[in-house]
């Protein structure tokens, strides 16, 4: 006999009813109701959830978070850079060429590059921990749930996606607050299309060289293209391999609280330390591997046509011929797997020129403006940096999903760049 036939309704309902009945009876005897202490919290909700003020208030807070992150971290970034430049110089004095180069260019150079990002990551986590502990983040999810839901996502996907504009690494870590497994997976796979701060120097270099007075528009269009591709990709995933409805938005909106110093610092530390640990493992290995590729066979000029990376670039260049990319560009895109801003630095190394103006001249001589725009789009969309891949692996706990992220994003980047070259070819 089934429970339903005995009690005349679902066991779940009967259980919940009975449970809350029991709770109610206990409360009647045990709880003395004090004054309602909702007032301040209610007042804040009147502002943050107001029909007209809610969204502008959110935008203002967001602006403050980014402003704080970049302003507060700038001196620390400079400090870390100086420290590693010093270490690198010291290591270059080692009499053994191979060891000197491995230490200076490979380990210290690569690690220093990545570690400079610990400063903005820590400060962004600090700002977010404050917002989270105060109870505001739950409200932001509440305010934007409708838009996210239309895109097949959940209100809680909103903040991580937004963080992606700063750095994809903390953004993907922030998806932990999303309960639905599929909602979370779609969010993780979509975040890399959000144009992180590291891609900006690449856009600026290329846009300034090719689009002169329209440079700002070209850079802005990268952010727009990133968002459009992210939306399309999320919708595609929701209709194919991650089918289903977004999880219901049945969540508590906690009262606003004053964040505590120890709580905030603990949150910040937990998340920031995870990034540093990763920098010490995955990233270090990646940096050494890329260094090996650029200096082997031993004796060639680093990153030249004869080096392994130069040879790989030349070998796969035909794939990129339809996009109009030279092998130098292909090689530097491989380098940029470590961190996207490396495109700039490695173009210099591979073209054998120094300084931004010379890199721009070399680019102008080797690709068309349409290909240059395609290169910007490719840089925007293709495999996120090694740090992001590492964190995708950690958060999904699966090599298959990590591999899927890499392959699908390279494919999306290639197709988008190809579309630009083809459409551009018609008009120009």
């Amino acid at each position, binding site marked *: 006999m089934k429970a339903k036939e005995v009690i005349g309704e679902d066991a*779940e*309902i009967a259980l*919940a*009813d009975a449970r*809350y009945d029991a709770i109610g009876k206990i409360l009647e005897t045990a709880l003395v109701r004090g004054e309602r202490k909702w007032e301040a919290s209610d007042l804040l*909700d009147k502002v943050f*959830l*107001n*029909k*007209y003020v*809610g*969204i502008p208030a959110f935008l203002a807070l967001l602006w403050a978070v980014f402003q704080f992150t970049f302003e507060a971290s700038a001196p620390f970034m400079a400090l870390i850079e100086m420290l590693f430049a010093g270490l690198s110089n010291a290591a270059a004095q080692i009499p053994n060429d191979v060891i000197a180069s491995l230490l200076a260019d490979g380990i210290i150079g690569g690690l220093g590059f990545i570690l400079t990002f610990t400063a903005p990551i820590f400060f962004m986590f600090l700002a977010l921990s404050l917002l989270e502990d105060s109870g505001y983040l739950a409200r932001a999810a*509440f*305010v*934007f*749930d*409708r*838009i996210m*839901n239309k895109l097949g996502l959940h*209100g809680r996907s909103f903040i991580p996606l937004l963080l992606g504009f700063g750095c994809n690494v903390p953004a993907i870590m922030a998806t932990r607050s999303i309960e639905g497994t599929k909602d979370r997976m779609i969010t993780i796979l979509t975040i890399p299309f959000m144009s992180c701060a590291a891609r900006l120097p690449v856009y600026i270099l290329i846009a300034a060289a090719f689009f002169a007075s329209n440079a700002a528009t070209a850079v802005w269009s990268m952010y727009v293209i990133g968002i459009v591709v992210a939306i399309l990709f999320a919708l595609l995933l929701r209709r194919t391999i991650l089918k289903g409805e977004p*999880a*219901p*938005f*049945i*969540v*508590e*909106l*906690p*009262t606003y609280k004053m964040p505590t110093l120890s709580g905030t610092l603990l949150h910040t530390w937990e998340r920031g330390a995870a990034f540093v640990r990763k920098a010490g493992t995955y990233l270090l290995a990646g940096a050494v591997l890329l260094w090996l590729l650029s200096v082997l066979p031993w004796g060639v000029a680093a990153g030249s046509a004869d080096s392994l990376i130069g040879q790989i670039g030349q070998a796969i260049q035909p794939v990129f011929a339809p996009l109009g990319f030279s092998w130098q560009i292909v090689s530097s895109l491989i380098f940029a797997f470590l961190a996207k801003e490396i495109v700039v630095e490695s173009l210099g190394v591979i073209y054998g020129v120094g300084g931004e103006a010379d890199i721009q001249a070399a680019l102008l001589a080797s690709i068309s403006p349409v290909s240059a725009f395609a290169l910007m789009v490719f840089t925007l969309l293709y495999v996120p940096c090694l740090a992001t891949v590492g964190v995708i692996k950690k958060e999904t706990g699966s090599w298959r999903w990590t591999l899927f992220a890499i392959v699908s994003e390279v494919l999306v980047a290639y197709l988008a760049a190809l579309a630009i070259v083809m459409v551009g070819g018609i008009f120009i």
Partner: protein
Amino acid sequence: MRLSDLKPNQIATVKAIEEAGQAKRRIMEMGLVRGSRIRVICRAPLGDPIEVEVRDYKLSLRRRDAENIIITEGV
């Protein structure tokens, strides 16, 4: 009457929950069961979801789920 018909600051009592599966379990876990008193606080700036007060705390749920909660006005 359904929870989605309730206007801000109106108070009602839950009569039945017509949801199924995941959403239903979640709604009841959060203490929205038959007989619960519920008050609508506000709608999100874009019209959905809504914020309600139940058992002395605040809960948010989408219109779609609110439509499946049958209520009677008043306590």
